[in-house]
């Protein structure tokens, strides 16, 4: 342990014929992604406060939260249509409201928070407001637009970078794979009901960055081997490259996984969703490097890449 390593993932000289399963891999991925797209339309993402707008108040009451009393106090303050739900312990209550519509909606959104605060302390004296957020409709619209812009531009820049550093087959298959990863992450979000907000966009961008990184390492080896073995068929060559980088692929995904795991377990309400999505993304990103990005490269480059190399 202090000098020689004790463990390793695969022995040197391992030759797993990954490309034999290329159609199975692509098909599985396509099915999962299509299902995710379906989930995106129905039932759809649970939008978080950032993107939906409205009000969220988290309160901790002394003793168990009395929903009936809270509702009555809210009604007294003129707040109707509030969603109450418990989270964490029995003394934690979450109050949600959508953004009002009509004239002066922005101003009323902000005033509602104060009404909810008053209602909470009136209904259960000694209650503590842990968090109170109000996001107006105009802000949530902008946040959503900016979030999507960040996602889209990141994908474009990754495409451009790989295009410049490699060849277009590499860039296109990498970005296609990323889009497939992205759709599956959306499916995961729908199924788990994690709220989709700016922090989730950050998680998704991190996954994209990680996943690209993973693909770049495999592609880097493919490029090197294209120069080294001038006559080897592309299929064999890609298999060789994946096998050669397999220890690294598994090693890095393990360390990132290990780093994100404690966040998922102990990160608290605000970060555990983020961390679970990260963990999912690490698994998807790692497997897609082998089962999606490589087969796509094989399909697209079978004729062209080999001819280029032999010229």
């Amino acid at each position, binding site marked *: *342990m*202090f*000098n*020689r390593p*004790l*463990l390793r993932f695969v022995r040197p*000289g391992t030759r797993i014929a990954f490309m034999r399963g290329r159609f199975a891999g692509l098909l599985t991925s396509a099915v999962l992604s299509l299902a995710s797209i379906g989930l995106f339309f129905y039932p759809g993402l649970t939008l978080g406060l950032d993107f939906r707008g409205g009000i969220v108040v988290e309160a901790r009451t002394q003793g168990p939260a009395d929903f009936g009393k809270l509702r009555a106090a809210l009604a007294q303050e003129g707040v109707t249509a509030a969603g109450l739900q418990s989270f964490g312990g029995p003394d934690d209550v979450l109050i949600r409201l959508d953004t009002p519509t009509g004239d002066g909606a*922005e101003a009323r959104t*902000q005033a509602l928070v*104060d009404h909810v605060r008053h209602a909470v302390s009136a209904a259960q004296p000694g209650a*503590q*407001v*842990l*968090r*109170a*957020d*109000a996001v*107006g409709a*105009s802000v949530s619209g902008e*946040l959503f637009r*900016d979030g999507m*812009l960040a996602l889209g*531009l*990141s994908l474009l*820049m*990754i495409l451009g*970078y790989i295009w410049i550093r490699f060849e277009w087959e590499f860039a296109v298959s990498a970005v296609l794979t990323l889009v497939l990863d992205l759709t599956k992450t959306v499916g995961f979000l729908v199924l788990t009901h994690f709220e989709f907000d*700016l922090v989730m*966009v*950050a998680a998704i*961008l*991190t996954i994209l*960055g*990680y996943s*690209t*990184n993973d693909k*770049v*390492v495999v592609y*880097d080896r493919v490029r090197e081997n294209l120069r080294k073995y001038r006559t080897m068929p592309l299929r064999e060559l890609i298999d060789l490259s994946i096998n*050669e*980088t397999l*220890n*690294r692929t598994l090693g*890095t995904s*393990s*360390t*990132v996984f*290990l*780093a*994100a*795991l*404690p*966040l998922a*377990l*102990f*990160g*608290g309400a*605000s*970060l555990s969703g983020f*961390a679970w999505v990260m963990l999912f993304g690490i698994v998807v990103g790692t497997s897609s490097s082998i089962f999606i990005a490589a087969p796509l490269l094989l399909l697209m480059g079978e004729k062209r890449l080999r001819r280029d190399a032999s010229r």
Partner: protein
Amino acid sequence: MMYYSRLRMLSVLGVCLLGLVLCLPNVMRAPAAHLPWRQIHLGLDLRGGSYLLMQVDLQALEHDRLQSLSDQARQALLHDNLGYRDIVLDDTARRVTLYPRDVSEHDRALQTLGAIPASVPDEFAASSLPDGRLALTLSEAALQVRAREAVTQSIEIVRRRIDATGAIDPEITRQGNDRIVVQLPGISDPERIKALLGTTARMTFHLLDESATGASVAAPGVTLMPTTDGSNQTLPIRDHVEVDGADLTNAGAMIDQQNGQWAVNFTFNRVGAAAFAAVTRANVGHRFAIVLDNKVIEAPVIQTPITAGNGQITGNFTAQKATDLALLLRAGALPVPLSVIEQRSIGPSLGADSIRAGAMSLGVGFVLVIVFMALFYGRFGWYANVALLANLVLMMAILSLFEATLTLPGMAGLLLTLGMAVDANILINERIREEVARGRTALAALQAGFERATSTIVDSNATALLAHVMLFVFGTGPVRGFALTITIGIATTLFTTLLLSRLLMVRWYALTRPATLPV
């Protein structure tokens, strides 16, 4: 590649040492007062507090300017003995239009309008429209200058008002063209501050149109204004401002000796005092209205001329209301209305919970990664771990140097960076293994491992960097903190893996000259 000059070695170690020194301010007090003692700030989500995003109402600003422009136009035309009719404010086209009384006066009226003095160069242009109307159109550029000034001024007023409440370390910054961000650490219920900032607090003194009391329709130059006493009553207030609250020098809340109620006392400057004296002297026995933001606070009858330049407002105040009004009057009126469009408040207990959760995750994650590296890569894994520790220190150092704000997502970014940082070491180690398996000597394998892995390391970090720069540009609040820590982390990772851990491996090789490598 395999040789580190003494200078290079010392500078790598020097940077690490410097990093350690820069981290000190976060754990101890400054030993001497004059030392630059920069430390990481905790974000509102960790220490508790409120974040308010305020929108500056630029449309109101435009409307006000159009209103005053139409007044100026009226006066200029009257002064030149020119008539007009149908003077109209057009907010969407940003112009004031009017018909000259007679077509023959068209050219002279145009000239008069063109000669109205502008408050900023090229503020507006006078033109004639095809249908015979004359128009004064505000220019886009001048409006932008005004808007910029108004936002700057508003920030100043907001700062004065918040400082007056005794809030600690408030941060007030401009965002974009027409927004102001107010961050209030430690204040988890911003209701009072929201009310203070949402009040324009423009106070003016007007005479009443006493002939029209009780009327439902106001005469020209008179506005029916609601009162603040809770009744539905409106009072006919003359538009002409007799004295402006901008001429106040001081205001304070106190209990009125005569009736024991809360009141606000104010003192005018010389201009205000003179105007106040003149009005009160000429209008003894008449009602005089104190108007705040288009609402009448009170409209007492003037008993005697007030020439000392001070006065008192009694409007059924509670202690808090009187204190706040005095505060608003001292801090001055906002040039434009502000409204809150986003607020986020976090209580202190939740912040403390978050710090605990974040620190715990960071600790456990760090240990897991270290154990993994030790098990899978042995000696070289430990070198990677030393580099990892240095990485953490350097990230903290840079964050301290920038006095950056650490948020909860920022802590997540720190942790993920540590997970990703060993990737470079893994790449190098795996490469060395392969070279050894191909039968190379220890030295050749080390050399090839470093060389071949470098371009891969640069490529993979560059793509991650691109994604997070985008996030930093388009993100807001805590998410930016996340992007910032990851971006800094990528830079420190390149340093610690490409220079530090390699240095350790090379020194070990130079000292022991092993025949085989522990891979």
